[in-house]
């Protein structure tokens, strides 16, 4: 039996190693994606484009604007002379924020009144808009405190700061988002490679008709599938290693936890992902269908439902339940615990069990569907 499994694995490996284009795509593009992730993608909202509609034109407003644009958060694009311009600026995305100073700003400040500075924010991107809101609030309050300070200085008192906030960030003191994204990216790359390649490689035999030769051979379907799977487990492990090594070289990602646990977690995840792939291959008759099915079950779900980018806890309950369809969700939790926090198995043992269940369910389903379709023939 082992001999036969080994033979199939060897045949599959040979076939793969001849397909240099395929290997190039599988091994090279994960690194490209990692680079995109590391350098191009960040959630930091900086260099917000602002326009100023200054109806007061006083020293106060000039000082205020200088304060805003001296930080890296705001870039002054233009001054608005007329209210009607504001709409065009926001409509055409020329600026993201328009600051409006009322014409009685300095008069009110001098008479110790409260003045409202108006901010018009482009809210199309809600996340960016709420970050901008945070910044403008902070900027206004800090200017206000500065005014108070100056006022107090005249009367000979010192400003007192009641609360000094001391934030500390554990596990990621520089607040880099790259390190946080690498586990998610790794999960996504592995699941797509695993699901797509295993389902396609089995369906290809069906489509080309070579499956009939296998059917008449003494191979059992268990041996056939296991033999097909082994090479892809190796490829996935190599892929994972490439991502981790590139992560270390490019972004200084150090694996904080246990390497053996990492390997064990990855193998459990691959069991689940390959289970899904095998299931797809029993349902699909053509590579086209298998491709579409693999896309639906692995590409977007592992991107959007895995908690990789969008936090699961803010999703509606029904969707939270649905996130369980992607094994990447569990793997991302495991990877983050091991890679970033160096946590032990106590932090994620439940995820391993879920992955085990996931793989078993899909392989069982695959066996049932397979038996049925063979019965039909």
């Amino acid at each position, binding site marked *: 039996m082992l001999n036969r499994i080994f033979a199939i694995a060897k045949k599959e490996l040979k076939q793969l190693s001849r*397909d240099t*284009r*395929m290997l190039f*795509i599988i091994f090279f*593009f994960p690194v*490209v994606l990692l680079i995109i*992730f590391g*350098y*191009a*993608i*960040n959630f*930091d909202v900086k260099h917000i484009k602002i326009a100023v509609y200054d109806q007061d034109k006083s020293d106060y407003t000039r000082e205020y604007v200088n304060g805003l644009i001296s930080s890296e958060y705001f870039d002054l694009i233009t001054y608005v002379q007329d209210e009607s311009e504001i709409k065009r600026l926001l409509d055409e995305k020329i600026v993201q924020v328009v600051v409006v100073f009322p014409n009685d700003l300095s008069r009110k*400040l001098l008479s110790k009144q*409260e003045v*409202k*500075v108006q901010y*018009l924010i482009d*809210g*199309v*991107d809600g*996340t960016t808009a*709420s*970050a901008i*809101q*945070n910044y*403008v609030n*902070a900027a206004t309050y800090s200017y*206000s*405190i500065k*005014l*108070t300070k100056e006022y107090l200085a005249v009367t000979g008192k010192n400003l*007192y700061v*009641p*609360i000094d*906030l*001391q*934030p500390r*960030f*554990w596990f*990621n*003191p520089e*607040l880099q988002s790259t390190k946080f994204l690498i586990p998610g990216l790794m999960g996504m790359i592995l699941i*797509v490679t695993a699901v797509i390649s295993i389902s396609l490689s089995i369906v290809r035999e069906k489509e080309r008709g070579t499956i009939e030769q296998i059917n008449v051979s003494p191979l059992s379907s268990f041996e056939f599938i296991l033999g097909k799977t082994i090479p892809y487990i190796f490829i996935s492990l190599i892929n994972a290693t490439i991502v981790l090594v590139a992560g270390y070289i490019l972004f200084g990602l150090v694996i904080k936890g246990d390497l053996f646990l990492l390997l064990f977690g990855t193998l459990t995840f691959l069991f689940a992902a390959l289970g899904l792939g095998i299931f797809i291959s029993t349902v*699909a008759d*053509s*590579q*086209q*269908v298998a*491709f*579409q099915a693999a896309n*639906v079950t692995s*590409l977007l779900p592992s991107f*959007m*439902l895995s908690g990789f980018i969008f*936090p699961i806890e803010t999703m509606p309950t*029904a*969707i939270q339940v649905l996130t369980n369809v992607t094994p990447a969700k569990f793997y991302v939790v495991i990877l983050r*615990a091991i890679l970033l*926090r160096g946590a032990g198995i106590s*932090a994620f043992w439940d995820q391993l069990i879920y992955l085990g269940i996931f793989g078993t369910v899909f392989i069982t389903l695959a066996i049932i569907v397979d038996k049925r379709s063979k019965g039909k023939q």
Partner: protein
Amino acid sequence: MKTIYHFIIKELLQVKRDKKMLAIIFMAPILQLIFLGYAANMDVNIVHTTIYDQDKTETSRNFISRLVETGYFQIDYNVNSYEEITDLLNEGKTLVAIVIPKDFEKKINRRETTQLQTIFEGSDASKASMALGYIQGVTTRFSQNLITETKDKLGMKISLSGSLTPEVRVWYNPEMKSRVFMVPGILGLVLMISTISLMSMAVVREREIGTMEQLIVTPIKKYQLLLGKLIPFTMIGFVILVIVMILMTQWFGIIVRGNPLFLLFAAFLFILSNLGIGLLISTVSKTQQQAMMASVFAVMMPMIYLSGFAFPIENMPKFFQYITYAIPLRYFITIIRGVVLKGIGFSSLWLETLILLGMGVSILVLSANRFSKKIE
């Protein structure tokens, strides 16, 4: 003309007979748009908080209730030691631990500075800094009140100096919901994935199954073959487009503020450029497996990340910003968000529309040239 017509009928029949294919072509975009539309939400609206209140006075309780009043902070744990904080952070159970020092109230009453320690589980940088922003907001307001409003002997509040307060108005999407922003983006994504993956298999499939040879010996010309492949897939793409548009407006209740016909036209151009990309992949690949891996890893994943769908292009380094100019999805997302959320039309979006058109045509021409009616 007749040859092309027959070819189109053949392609459509093939799709129609393949029940599984038919189901998946049309069901996939529907399911994905619905589920992902609900899932795509980056708002950090719950900050899981742990409080270590060493002071336990009226002032410290007052400060905590200021936090809770914002609606962002959910206090999951009240702890009494640093060890507990360490455990909670290690296991990822809490996002931030706030330590209120023993002499919090005393120092505030003496008008001295008191230190407030906040420890974040920083592995998710964006979440942590968002939470820090909320905490900063609360402490600044708390401080501001303590500074500007000092009480006279009778307990009446008096203002020490004039002050500025921000008044924020958010346009287009006043509740700053991600859904209104994300769903149109996902529509673009879903449309791209289904059209590219359909088309990328189209030619290479005939090659792999061996039916390409039959096509070669028929008198059908190269351009007829290509049109015969393109037209049915454009039709399918258009049907998918109409379905997802209806879903967006009816299911998610997102109102298209601009001209829906202009949006359909732009989407049509977008489909053309995707089919072009798909055809290009199909002509350079030797097997379906190659075509698939190439379209996922080399085309779709980078495009998803660089399109500005979830990650703002303005935040990217210049080099990557230049790359985004080559991505059709980028232009389509700008167009659809503009039309749906801002209600703007061709007069503001003419450049994006023209670029999509130019891209569609040039990619199609390029891939048509790469395509040869030969056996290698």
